[in-house]
């Protein structure tokens, strides 16, 4: 049994009666508040007003205008000026694309009634896709996936590649489902958009890609279409999807344009009321996420797969190239690289504010120069590929395509390592979570 000799409890600490203790309680309360509002605390902050006088750094790394000022007269590069420049660049791109899409719709409509107009429609498609491929690395906000901030998935409604299905398009040709109301803007994304338009405008063969057991072959409904009827239906279908492309291009432009959706304002003013980006860093992250298109789509899907070095059971997989009917897979990659350069070095062939200017302002000049050089080297590698059709180039000169792939990989390696490190960006689709 224990010997419990009773002793009195110690007197209350003197400190507990003083102001220090009150400060302690206040601190505990503050911690409670902070813990309770953790997401708000980290993601909802404003930024100083535009006229704030806080310090900033002048820098230039882009080719710049005649004065050598990449800010276009603003004189100072900050992350905010970068967001501003990206929004402006994107609006210009989307405006140009919308006009090209409208041109495509007009030409495709004419080709519907005049078969001789198909060449003009093809040229209009090439003009539109060339612009669109530059816009591919810009797919954040309304153009981006619906699970991203402000995302409406509009990119896929314009160009769904690699989600394409020639067989589905051919089934529609037989069923004439493209005649339904709003088909061009509401049908499944792999039945419309620029990819479907490419097949309809460029492919003149009378075969189809569906299995012998599929309805159009088993019932003979495809075979029953004569060559003329097939061409006529393709032209009509092409007109429908081209009109849809123009409509979706207008919708995407409208979503960004001031006076309509004005997403540009949300993008330029993160952290302010009404913006889906609760911090400026979140807006920059959205751009950097979109730039990873260079890895997932360009490096892996457009180059590695056809080259046979990824997800390909044969020596090469030329059937996996983009643009199998217009045979423009090389220009597509080149335009993707130019779009990437618009973000990296600034709009208009590297003029204006780009990520490189922010990197230089931060002191990461070597990284900025390296990434600019790598992007230019990749564009040069694309130019060195002997054919516009990568499938043909892989057959004739696989080394040139391998070099292009390696050049793109150098960009994506920098993007995933130093670039996100120096700018403290998150990798795409990184779940918000705890760290320590």
């Amino acid at each position, binding site marked *: *049994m*224990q*010997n*419990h*000799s*009773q*002793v009195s*409890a*110690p007197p*209350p*600490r003197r400190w*507990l009666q003083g102001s220090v*203790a009150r*400060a*302690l309680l206040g601190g505990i309360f*503050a*911690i409670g508040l*902070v*813990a309770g509002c*953790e997401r708000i*605390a*980290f993601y909802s*902050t*404003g*930024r*100083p007003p*535009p006229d704030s006088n*806080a*310090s*900033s*750094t002048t820098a230039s790394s882009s080719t710049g205008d005649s004065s050598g000022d990449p800010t276009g007269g*603003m*004189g*100072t*590069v*900050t992350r*905010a000026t970068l967001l*501003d420049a990206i929004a402006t660049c994107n609006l210009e791109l989307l405006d140009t694309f919308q006009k090209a899409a409208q041109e495509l719709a007009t030409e495709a409509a004419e080709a519907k009634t005049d078969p001789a107009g198909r060449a003009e429609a093809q040229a209009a498609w090439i003009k539109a896709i060339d612009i669109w491929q530059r816009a591919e690395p810009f797919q954040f906000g309304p153009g981006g996936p619906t699970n991203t901030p402000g995302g409406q998935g509009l990119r896929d409604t314009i160009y769904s590649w690699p989600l394409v299905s020639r067989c589905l398009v051919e089934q529609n040709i037989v069923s004439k489902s493209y005649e339904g109301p709003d088909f061009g803007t509401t049908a499944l994304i792999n039945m419309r958009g620029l990819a479907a338009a490419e097949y309809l405008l460029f492919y003149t063969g009378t075969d189809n890609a569906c299995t012998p057991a599929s309805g159009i072959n088993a019932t003979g409904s495809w075979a029953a279409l004569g060559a003329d009827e097939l061409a006529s239906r393709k032209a009509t279908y092409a007109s429908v999807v081209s009109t849809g492309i123009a409509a979706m291009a207008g919708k995407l432009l409208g979503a960004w344009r001031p006076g309509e959706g004005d997403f540009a304002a949300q993008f330029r003013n993160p952290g302010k009321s009404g913006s889906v980006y609760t911090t*400026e*860093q979140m807006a920059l992250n959205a751009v950097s996420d979109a730039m990873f298109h260079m890895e*997932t789509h360009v490096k892996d899907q457009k180059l590695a797969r056809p080259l046979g*070095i*990824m997800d390909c059971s044969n020596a090469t997989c030329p059937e996996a190239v983009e643009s199998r009917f217009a045979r423009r897979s090389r220009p597509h990659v080149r335009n993707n690289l130019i779009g990437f350069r618009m973000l990296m070095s600034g709009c208009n062939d590297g003029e204006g504010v780009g990520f490189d200017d922010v990197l230089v302002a*931060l*002191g990461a000049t070597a990284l900025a120069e390296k990434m600019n050089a790598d992007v230019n080297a990749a564009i040069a590698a694309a130019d060195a590929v002997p054919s516009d059709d990568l499938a043909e180039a892989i057959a004739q000169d696989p080394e040139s395509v391998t070099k292009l792939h390696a050049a793109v*990989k150098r960009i994506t390696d920098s993007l*995933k*390592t*130093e670039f996100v*490190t*120096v*700018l*403290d960006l998150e*990798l795409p689709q990184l*779940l*918000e*979570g*705890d*760290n*320590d």
Partner: protein
Amino acid sequence: MTERAEAVRPGRLARLASLLLRPEDAAALAAFRFCFGLLGCVSAIRFLVYGWVDEFFVKPRFFLSYWGFDWLAPLSARGMHALFVALAVVSACVAFGFLYRAAIVLFLLGFTYVQLLDVTNYLNHYYLVSLLALLLSFMPLHRAYSVDAWLFPKLRSATLPAWCTYLLRVQVGAVYFFAGLAKVNSDWLLHAQPLNIWLSSRTYLPIIGPLLGERWVAFAMSWAGCLFDLTVVAFLLMPRTRVAAYAVVLFFHAVTKLLFPIGMFPAIMVVAALVFFSPSWPRNLIGFLRRRAPAPAPALPARVAAPLPPLFGARVAIAACYCAFQLLWPLRTHLYGGNVLWHEQGIRFSWRVMLREKNGSVTYLVTDPRTGRTQEVPPRKYLNGRQERDFSTQPDLILRLAHQIARDFEAREGVRPVVRAHAPVSLNGRPAELLLDPTVDLASISDGLAKATWIRPVPTAPPIHLESLAWHRP
């Protein structure tokens, strides 16, 4: 053994017993139990509310298990959700001391199971929660201020033995001390990295934002953080400095909470640091809040004169071994040499908290030995974005996935492939360099605790120094 030695030992043991078994006011430990349970409950609810149960444990196609724990598998989606609901419930039981013994053991098992499922989920503070739960499962913290004590009067005791507090102090003290020791490196002290990188991207914050881009601020915070971690335990242990030290604890963790997405970590450490206060602090606090004299503390025996409890020596030995482990295990990385932030051997379970901004890009090159044909395999074929980010800078995880890729290839093609990895990594803003020897066949290398010769030496370039760059327009 000599008679003299035998004569001395019981005396020492008795003195040790009087120290460790000395009854103390149970109030502080009851408050700690309550706060710990509450944090566990909030943590489980966060996972459910934020959708993290699905993201972390249901959606991933592949889990990077801990070495030796390959046999652990996640439950079904419904099972994982049920587990987190159960964790919230048992945490609440711990907080209120209801069926405490069962609840704390169930919490320990459930929480640790969840953490062991995927290494990419590893966080130092989750490890700390598991360790604290382990310690709490041996402590009778339900004897006071609990539903158990109310339901079962025989359990009631206004005091608890002092060893409970000592063990918790050793555990929490180790966290702070080793976190401070880990900061004694050139990146942290001489280059203020990674704080310079992290603070530079937070210049948009109101009021303090413009300051955060200044390099001197990063240096000041780096040194202050290091000194804080190394010394705070000593100041918390001394009664004269305890309150001031705790105020600094609150300030430090509030600042880190505001600046960085570190979830429950600050709250856990703020609660954990309470173990350094006197056993009667809740009584004094309540008295202060009511502006009257605190409730009297329970009568405390002056000394222990009872016979030693059964197996007392063995219990002390086990506790001593635990403490020794906690003091030695975090140091194991020094056996590997080099820069632990680069090779990461021994980095886990060593309280190296927020020491690196590290990003990598891994591409596997899988070669069929029969044909010599090489194909690329991107990690995203197995991992989601969150897993890939954590994985791509940790050599043992890259090795583990290489083994899985080799197994899958062998199952498909009937031959063991050569698996190499091209893995450039940037540490604290250094130019990216290859983390692993790109010529090594990872499929032929066994995972283990030995020094990994297939990891390349740390880059010799210093970390980047970022200049101040404001967010706003000029």
